[in-house]
């Protein structure tokens, strides 16, 4: 059994302390959190959706899923890994942009269809979204310019079929 990345989509009660229950479960049992994003859902303000990327073999991920289910505030846990889903991550990246680098950066921004959201005398801040492959590729291309700082939301995902995810 090999370690594999799993995307878990977790619907929880939108209440104080719920995130701490989930984070505590992961740290207490030694499970991995690669990324995590949380927000109230638009369809029901009493619920939040947590999208979490975790790594483990089948055995561990089975335990993670079952342990999450056991938390009273967790309503559904959906492992999207073997399903059809769309995934996105949003990144803000601040990069050096000396006058002689600007044209090249804008070209890359154009190719990746993202946009510059803030300009300074010597830097750009760029907003980009995509799956993690695209984001990594983008970072690699900008690295030679000198990356100042980045902020990433972590992956979010939804299954492709029309049904509400369970």
């Amino acid at each position, binding site marked *: 059994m090999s370690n594999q990345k799993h995307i878990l989509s977790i619907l929880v009660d939108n209440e104080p*302390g719920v995130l*701490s229950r989930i984070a505590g479960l992961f740290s*207490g049992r030694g499970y991995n959190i690669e990324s995590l994003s949380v927000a109230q859902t638009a369809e029901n303000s009493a619920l939040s959706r947590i999208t979490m990327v975790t790594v483990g073999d089948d055995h561990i991920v089975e335990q993670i899923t079952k342990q999450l289910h056991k938390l*009273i*505030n967790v*309503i*559904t846990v959906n492992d999207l890994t073997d399903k059809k889903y769309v995934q996105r991550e949003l990144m803000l990246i601040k990069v050096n942009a000396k006058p002689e680098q600007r044209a090249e950066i804008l070209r890359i921004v154009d190719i990746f269809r993202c946009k510059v959201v803030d300009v300074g005398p010597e830097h750009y801040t760029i907003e980009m979204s995509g799956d993690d492959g695209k984001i990594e590729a983008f970072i690699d291309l900008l690295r030679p310019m000198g990356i100042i700082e980045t902020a990433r939301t972590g992956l979010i995902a939804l299954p492709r079929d029309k049904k509400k995810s369970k």
Partner: protein
Amino acid sequence: MKLKGAQILIKMIKEEGVDTIFGYPGGAVIDIYDALDNTTDLRHILVRHEQAAVHAADAYARAKGTVGVALVTSGPGATNTVTGIASAYMDSIPIVVFTGQVPTALIGNDAFQEVDIVGITRPCTKHNYLVKDITKLAKTIKEAFHIAKSGRPGPVLVDLPKDVMAAMTEFEEPGEIDLKSYKPTYNPNMKQLSKVVELIKEAKRPVIFSGGGVVLSKASCELTKLAKMMNCPVTASLMGLGTFPGSDPLWLGMLGMHGTYRANMSIGHCDLLIAVGVRFDDRVTGRKDKFASEAKIVQIDIDPTSIHKNVEANCPIVGDCKNTLELLNSMLEGENLADISGNPEERQAWLDQIAQWRAASPQRYEQKDDVIKPQFVIDRLHKLTDKNTIITTEVGQNQMWTAQYYHFDQPNHFITSGGLGVMGFGLPAAIGAKAACPDKLVVCVAGDGSIQMNSQELMTAIESNLPVKIVILNNRYLGMVRQWQELFYDKRYSCTNMEKAPDFVKLAEAYGAIGMRTDKVNEVEEVLKKGLAYEGTVIMEFIVEREECVYPMVPAGVAITEMLLV
């Protein structure tokens, strides 16, 4: 009807059928104590340390088969409950712990006696709550009891700010509990069950392994019936002792680290293991890949996380133990009995093999006439008491000898801190059990070390008129740790010598109990008889062999068939 928060709390506790709670007052719960003062039909037992309130509630729940309740103040009162809560969590015992909290307006300000007890107990409760709004109080309490006792039971904590307890509101019945995300699976998958029937028919060397889940779901009769129908030997974990009669010829004794030779060998050689309400703790399995390695494993448990956690089951069934066994038994009754109980020759060969193991290495000790053997005391205690006696234990060798030599015939009569192994559990547990079952004889088997961890509870037993009998096996050592030092650390007895100890007879007397002591083999029975017959609380201290070890023993991480024998 207008009620104060504190009155709503008491009303809701009573509606759960709880007649006794265990607690300790303080500033944050003074309104609750004030309301208790006007309550006649809810008994409050005043402990001498909050840890004891939780252990007592735990034992009350176990002895009675209901939910136990503890009530403590904020801050230090709340933190003192953590060990008790963690123990109940590991043993899946339904208790509800109510903690006082500073007024809502002060929460988060490091107010006097404020702690984030909800945060502290998150990993050791089944669920917990902070009630900030009096209109949610009744419903939250009802939910807390519901969660504590349903599915796989466990402790629930409810944190109650002082202003919420003091406030008044129009009381509204909370109605039925409906938690959309919490629906335990009580009924098993029938397809899986019919697979079990086939596995039973194919089995030549079956073993049933019963655990704490069988106690909790009250499935002991069903389990016994299954064993009889199958003519199948039965073993149990520490938590499962009493779920199958210890006097029955099919009984193998406990399995695991200090299990009997025949139980562990049977696990090593069986071809079908029916595990009911167990979680395959490492103290049970030893080296996991060698555990029941020749067997198909059927595992019945209400908690899906127990399945495939430590041991891979070939036929997992999620469901309540009682429901599942009932259904399984009725399916088996529809079959030809001869198919269920196996080929007579093969089954006899299996039972003969087990009898041989038993003869080769019975559970034994040798009592000469000089020094008292601790096992001998338990052996006599068993002979002198009947099966309705409730036995609680402390932790260590005293606990294991009780498990080995007191042959429990009924569930809910052996009360021990299994998963967490809390020294200091036994005495408060005995008090809780006595409060639950005032007509039963309650005995606490203790070690000289453990009893010192909560000996202040002698006062509770006396004051509340809950007489308990304490048997101290005094080896002047933290014996279980010393045993490991003897066997695995070249006898370097670092910090396990307990020769400096109080005079336990005088200690008993200081609290108004009576104390007896002997170091003579021929006085053991007499002391026990006298102590058990005395109507009040009593300490019976037995000065026992200092360096006696608990055998058999499976060293940690070794296959359970590779035992160190006597």
